[in-house]
């Protein structure tokens, strides 16, 4: 976008990336463009607002008359009417055009974008990175396009990052996307902007923009849960993050898969008629080759986690199972 033409008007805001009277900081590559369009409309609006209010006030004072004054002569001026039809129309075409190009920029993620999966649930966000790491704040590298692929577990939410000037509803039953390229290291607010119930106003999070290299460090550290926590804790986190609990209950209630209540050391009858005791071997097989030994009464529907869970992850899950009495 040609920012030069109106640089005089917008210099104060496009030059720096700090917060201004109107705007939060410009921390993404598209923010400056969007602010520019905003100010373009802003100054048009200021012009017309001042013009109309001043004219109205002036007429009210200037043409004020006594009650018995004769009525004024009717006026008509087609040229004038055409003017104030055509001028706003032309301005509108420009605003539409700038709005359109800006929108297209913010809706066309570059092909090499870094993808983060986002899940909205009443009233928290969770962010899943390509390596399976999950966090409740969004961490991104600076100067790299990031594409968020989002869905909701319950009602409609909306992920809004004012500093990036980006927002998109997060809709249950489908994916929506938004992208940005942060150009400033720091922490910025994330808001939920689609009303989602009681704690809608507390469905907040942060986006942490890391400097070059720092992001990979953060990811390695965040991803390596085994160094941060005990095996039992790590196992508990893993089964939550990987959606195991969608099909396996912890309290004995029936679900798509067998319950995990008291699973360790339990005797299971298998679909082929044989039976076995749940031990390390069986758990490992069930995770990596779920169809091999299916418990009687359940369908062979579990997906494999081969390549998705590391050996150490499975060990942690086993340690966690031992605590489920």
């Amino acid at each position, binding site marked *: 976008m040609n920012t030069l033409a109106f640089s005089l008007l917008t210099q104060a805001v496009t030059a720096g990336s700090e917060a201004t009277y109107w705007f939060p900081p410009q921390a993404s590559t598209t923010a400056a463009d969007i602010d520019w369009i905003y100010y373009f409309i802003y100054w048009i609006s200021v012009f017309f607002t001042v013009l109309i209010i001043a004219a109205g006030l002036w007429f009210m004072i200037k043409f004020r008359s006594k009650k018995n004054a004769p009525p004024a002569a009717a006026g008509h001026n087609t040229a004038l009417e055409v003017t104030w039809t055509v001028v706003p129309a032309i301005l509108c075409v420009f605003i539409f055009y700038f709005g359109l190009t800006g929108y297209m920029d913010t809706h066309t993620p570059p092909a090499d974008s870094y993808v983060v999966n986002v899940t909205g649930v009443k009233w928290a966000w969770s962010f899943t990175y390509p390596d399976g790491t999950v966090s409740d704040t969004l961490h991104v590298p600076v100067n790299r396009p990031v594409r968020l692929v989002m*869905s909701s577990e319950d009602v409609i939410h909306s992920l809004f990052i004012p500093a990036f000037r980006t927002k998109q509803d997060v809709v249950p*039953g*489908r*994916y*929506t996307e938004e992208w940005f390229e942060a150009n400033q290291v720091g922490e910025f607010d994330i808001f939920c902007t689609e009303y989602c119930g009681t704690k809608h106003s507390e469905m907040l999070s942060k986006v942490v923009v890391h400097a070059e290299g720092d992001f990979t460090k953060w990811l390695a550290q965040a991803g390596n849960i085994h160094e941060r926590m005990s095996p039992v804790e790590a196992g508990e986190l893993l089964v939550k993050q990987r959606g195991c609990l969608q099909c396996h209950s912890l309290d004995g209630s029936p679900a798509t898969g067998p319950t995990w209540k008291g699973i360790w050391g339990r005797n299971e009858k298998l679909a082929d008629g044989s039976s076995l005791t749940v031990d390390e071997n069986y758990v490992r097989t069930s995770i990596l080759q779920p169809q091999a030994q299916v418990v009687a009464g359940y369908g062979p529907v579990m*997906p494999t986690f081969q390549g998705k869970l590391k050996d150490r992850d499975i060990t942690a899950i086993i340690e966690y199972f031992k605590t489920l009495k």
Partner: protein
Amino acid sequence: MSTTTHGHAQDHGLSHVMSAKMLLGVWGALIVLTVVTVITATQPMFNFGAYANLVIAMVIATVKASLVCLFFMHLLYDRKFNLLIFMGSLLFVLLFVSFSMMDTAQYQPAIQSRVEAQAQ
């Protein structure tokens, strides 16, 4: 005044009187068209594919609807303004349905891929 072609009605009637022949004729046409639409939709020899058959069914329904509107509902003989506003309302229906269809069709892949992801 409504365009009354019936001389007798001109004197004291408020609107056009439909002739008995016309009423029976329209009724007959409607019944025949109902039979035709059932046959084209169920007989194997009229199977031209989902799309073509939808068009056929809708064309027949629209012919039937037009008969009802123009004759049973007197629109052909009534003030033309009533016909105009009725047709106008159909434009708004068309607007509503077509825009909604256009948009929902565009984002179906986003729903489909979510469904597939959940199925895994």
